[in-house]
């Protein structure tokens, strides 16, 4: 059975409400201890107060700013290094074990080091986000360049494209299409970098709010922070979907039919 978009949205909302209701019921009846599991109504009140008093905005702004910076820096770095290594077999042969090693390393443990290097401000979170975003973009660009159709490439050469023009008109568009296909993951990772960075040491941001609330065993505020982060992660994801649709109009969608 298939559902229309409207009905599907209704089902989604109903499921969310049911989960919320079950949570409320279980904590209200003390089957789950409210001290550890929070109380949904209080969580809602905290979120409401954050937005009404405007207390959340500076924190949210910092977190989103860190996300955007980490995303842009990580993507640009990944794109440049990916193109370079993919087009230079020697450099890629030399760099390969290091890239693999760095990618295998759990990068979250770098957060304290970045805090020491770059301080407790925005920069250390951006650095953490960059290490997460970089590898996703890098591997996609690398793959994208390797998979450029040899026929398209030969055709461009026959049409008189110089090496620079091949880079600009063939490799780059091909690689960016792969970057965009990883956009959802990399924006998500930039967000993770920002929040985890804040959580491990900061003076501002939603991660910082959660850390503070945890310090005073205020479980409702912790949940409120999680709710706000989730909603904004969804918004970011939606934004990415819109951007992707605009930039990748040339890409065939599966089972697309169109009257000519």
């Amino acid at each position, binding site marked *: 059975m298939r559902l229309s978009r409207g009905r599907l949205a209704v089902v989604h909302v109903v499921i969310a409400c049911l989960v919320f209701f079950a949570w409320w019921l279980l904590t209200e009846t003390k089957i789950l201890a409210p001290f550890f599991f929070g109380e949904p109504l209080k969580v809602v009140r905290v979120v409401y107060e954050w937005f009404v008093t405007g207390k959340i905005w500076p924190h949210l702004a910092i977190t989103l700013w860190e996300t955007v910076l980490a995303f842009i820096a990580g993507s640009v770095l990944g794109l440049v290094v990916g193109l370079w290594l993919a087009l230079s077999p020697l450099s890629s042969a030399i760099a390969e074990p290091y890239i693999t090693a760095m990618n295998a390393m759990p990068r979250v443990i770098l957060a304290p080091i970045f805090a020491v290097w770059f301080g407790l401000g925005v920069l250390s979170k951006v650095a953490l986000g960059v290490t997460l975003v970089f590898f996703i973009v890098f591997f996609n660009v690398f793959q994208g360049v390797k998979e450029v*159709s040899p*026929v*398209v490439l030969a055709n*461009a050469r026959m*049409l*008189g494209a110089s090496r620079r023009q091949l880079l600009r*008109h063939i490799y780059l*568009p091909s690689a960016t299409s792969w970057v965009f296909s990883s956009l959802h993951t990399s924006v998500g990772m930039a967000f993770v970098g920002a929040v985890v960075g804040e959580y491990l040491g900061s003076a501002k941001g939603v991660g910082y709010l959660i850390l503070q609330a945890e310090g005073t065993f205020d479980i409702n505020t912790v949940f409120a922070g999680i709710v706000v982060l989730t909603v904004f992660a969804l918004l970011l994801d939606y934004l990415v979907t819109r951007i992707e649709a605009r930039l990748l109009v*040339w890409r065939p969608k599966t089972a697309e039919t169109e009257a000519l």
Partner: protein
Amino acid sequence: MTAAAAAAVAGHAPAAALAFDAVSCTFAARAGGDRYTAVSATSLAVAPGEFVSVVGPTGCGKSTLLNLAAGLLATSSGEVRVEGAVLDGINRRAGYMFQADALMPWRSALSNVMAGLEFGGMPRAEAEPKAREWLARVGLSGFEGRYPHQLSGGMRKRVALAQMLILDPQILLMDEPFSALDIQTRQLMENELLELWSANRKSVLFITHDLEEAISLSDRVVVLSAGPGTHPIGEFMIDLPRPRDVAEIRMTKRFVELHEAIWQVLRGEVLKGYAQSKR
């Protein structure tokens, strides 16, 4: 024409637009395989304005021959001459139409046709009207903004044709360009190609495995042996009158005679090629 005239003044016979001079092409061994000689000791010339088709069994190295002429592949021995000069690097006098889709999928039809002019440094404002004109000439007015995946196979071939012809190359290299099309579209495209060609005669080297296509289009048909080490084993002048309609000409008596004669030569090679592919 100018190159031919210059050669005549210098006291030589007019240089062929494209000439293979004892060309061989051997591919280095891949892991677990032997060296493979795709083309061996091939000599072949295409005169200015001549339409030459090359037929041969599948997998015999026809495309290798074309890639050598385009300068996409280097010869192992012998040389390729373009208007008398030895070819080194990409053949700038030639346009290449590939068997597979070669359009840039991220560019619209118009932008694909413009690509060559753009690479050559022509300003957009100047290149765009030319590209529109060429799209119109291949019957695709109104499809300027479409991306390749939004076009049918036949339309993509037309865009590729316009993309190649807009640069006004003196030599056209065509690698089974219409083999992926259905028979009706294919005959339409063949007629259109003949029409465009007769308006402004270029030298054409046309690769195909379809003998009927080869005869109906060409001035001359060259038969290649089965691989490895393919080389020409027969040459036939096609003295059918022009202008031709590729569908109608197949019914004429002369066409059938020529088909018969060429098939006699080609048949043995096709069987050899088939036996090899089964092994």
